[in-house]
């Protein structure tokens, strides 16, 4: 089962790499002309074509790119001349810190709030939270970010920096206060999904036969909740926590841009603006690979957390 998922993942990743390659290299018109625009003298176009291997056949081009990925030779950024890996690597680490911290805080907050609202089902906090959750899940992340900036760093209070500029060569953890607003934005965006799922699963678990049975046996209520209901409710919630990590792969793009956070998402936006093809190709492929890995890991964990599914398949 796990092996089949892995194999499918590898095939999908291969097809993804083909899509990335085709989208960036073979769109109508010559890439070199598109990049140089009005400054495209024949000599410069020619030079760029050679640099991008555009003078080779399509299969050759793909082979050069994909073998470069495995040998660590990703080419150089067209915008700043740096090697792609050297330029992107510190940003991957910064983004990973952002995603990880956000995911952990969001998961705990969502599970805790979801369990509590399920226990107090149909009380007024439950109704208030359900409306707030519905509102937040429909908000674009840049609106949340702007609201936080307005309240916490410009118009109302001035307690946090509105931009997360880092000195080159330093990593996100060296200045934790710069992480606060980007993390807060993403936590606000992801927590409602986890909360909603946890609440629904917990309500289902609390109404189930085994919880009823435990209560009839005279098990203390805290034990019914923590030992009987909670673990069964967390199993489906894990799937949603996985989905929020998937969401974060795209969510970091806008949030990093808002706060000028030097991560992979901001680099992608800059690269698309500057038509920096080698950087675009690598970042998009890296994000897609992350997406696939999280997907597989989530499936496997959900499988292991659900005994009955494990036996059937």
């Amino acid at each position, binding site marked *: 089962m796990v092996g089949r998922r892995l194999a499918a993942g590898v095939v999908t990743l291969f*097809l993804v790499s083909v899509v990335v390659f085709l989208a960036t290299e073979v769109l109508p018109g010559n890439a070199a002309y598109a990049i140089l625009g009005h400054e495209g003298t024949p000599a410069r176009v020619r030079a760029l074509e050679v640099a991008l291997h555009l003078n080779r056949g399509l299969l050759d081009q793909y082979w050069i790119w994909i073998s470069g990925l495995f040998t660590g030779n990703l080419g150089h950024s067209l915008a700043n001349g740096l090697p792609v890996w050297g330029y992107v690597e510190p940003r991957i680490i910064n983004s990973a810190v952002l995603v990880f911290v956000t995911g952990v805080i969001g998961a705990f907050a969502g599970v805790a709030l979801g369990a509590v609202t399920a226990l107090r089902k149909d009380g007024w906090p439950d109704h208030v939270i359900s409306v707030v959750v519905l509102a937040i899940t429909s908000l674009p992340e840049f609106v949340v970010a702007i609201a936080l900036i307005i309240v916490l760093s410009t118009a109302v209070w001035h307690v946090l920096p509105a931009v997360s500029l880092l000195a080159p060569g330093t990593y996100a953890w060296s200045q934790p206060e710069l992480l606060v607003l980007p993390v807060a934005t993403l936590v606000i965006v992801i927590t409602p999904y986890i909360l909603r*799922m946890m609440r629904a699963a917990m309500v*289902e678990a609390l109404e189930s036969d085994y919880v009823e049975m435990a209560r009839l046996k005279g098990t203390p209520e805290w034990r019914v909740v923590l030992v009987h209901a909670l673990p069964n409710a967390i199993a*489906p919630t894990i*799937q949603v926590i996985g989905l929020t990590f998937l969401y974060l792969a795209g969510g970091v*793009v806008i949030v990093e841009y808002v706060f000028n956070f030097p991560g992979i998402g901001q680099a992608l936006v800059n690269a698309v603006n500057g038509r920096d093809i080698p950087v675009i190709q690598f970042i998009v492929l890296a*994000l897609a690979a992350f997406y696939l890995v999280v997907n597989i890991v989530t499936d496997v964990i*959900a499988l292991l957390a659900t005994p009955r599914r494990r036996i059937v398949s």
Partner: protein
Amino acid sequence: MAVNVPAAPEARLRQARRIRRHQWGSVLWSAARTPRGMIGLGLAAFVVLVAVIGPFVAPNAPDALVTLAFGKPSGQFLLGGDFLGRDVLSRVLDGGWVLLIMAACATVLGIAGGATAGVSAAYLRGASDGIIMRAADVILSFPQIVFALLLLSLLGPRLWLITIAVGVSHAPQVARVLRSATLDISERDFVKAAELQGMRPAKVMWKEILPNLVSPLMVEAGLRLTYSIVIIAGLAFLGFGPPPPAASWGTMINENRDGLSLSPWAVIVPALLIALLTIGMNMFTDAFARVAIGVDRQPEEAALIENLSPGSR
């Protein structure tokens, strides 16, 4: 589970279809009368009205330099000036309709493409199913905004390209939902009856299966429309929207961010309009889903619980 269809089903089927059509109209109506649906519809209708009527009542041209950069609100310029000294109120009134048209087109594209793919995959089975769902997996491996950025990377921010990119990135999700709904329906007796009469597969899908998928289709349409607005406004915020000097809400938020402490209205008002629109859309979709599906749950949660909870197969 399905009721046996008598020997001469044609007339009865037509009658049944008429009833079904009548039903979803009444579902829509009763969704609009729930408190949640009413508030949602009201919010969304208000924003749509601003966007549609706005261009005709705007006091100034959206690109005319008429006041001071980040000028304070005054009797003449109710919301002050933007970063170049253009009238913020006029730009707000003029900046919504492009977003709405693009979001509507992207949604139609995503629903049409996704429904076609999902229904054919489930009904035709076999190789078509495998190919369609593998293609869906590939597109699903990209976060939606990253997929759009990838397609924009060579041709630049063309509005039609953004619309197509967002529409295509919706299709796999829609296809998955409709595929599982179709798998259920294509086993029903009325479909078998139509097949026995020698109806062609395309006609079976169009005439027999699709009319039974109206509820999930409309829930999907509501969700996708909300997401389209979020993504298209987000892309405009990143700088991939209508080219300057055109006004658009997403672009306005970004270009006026620097003046937040001087004149926040140029940021707050467009952000608020986007927020009200997406919240309204989502609330109405939620109300519709509750009435149509008849459970106190979001449809995606219901599907996840069915798949994963210990009580299911």
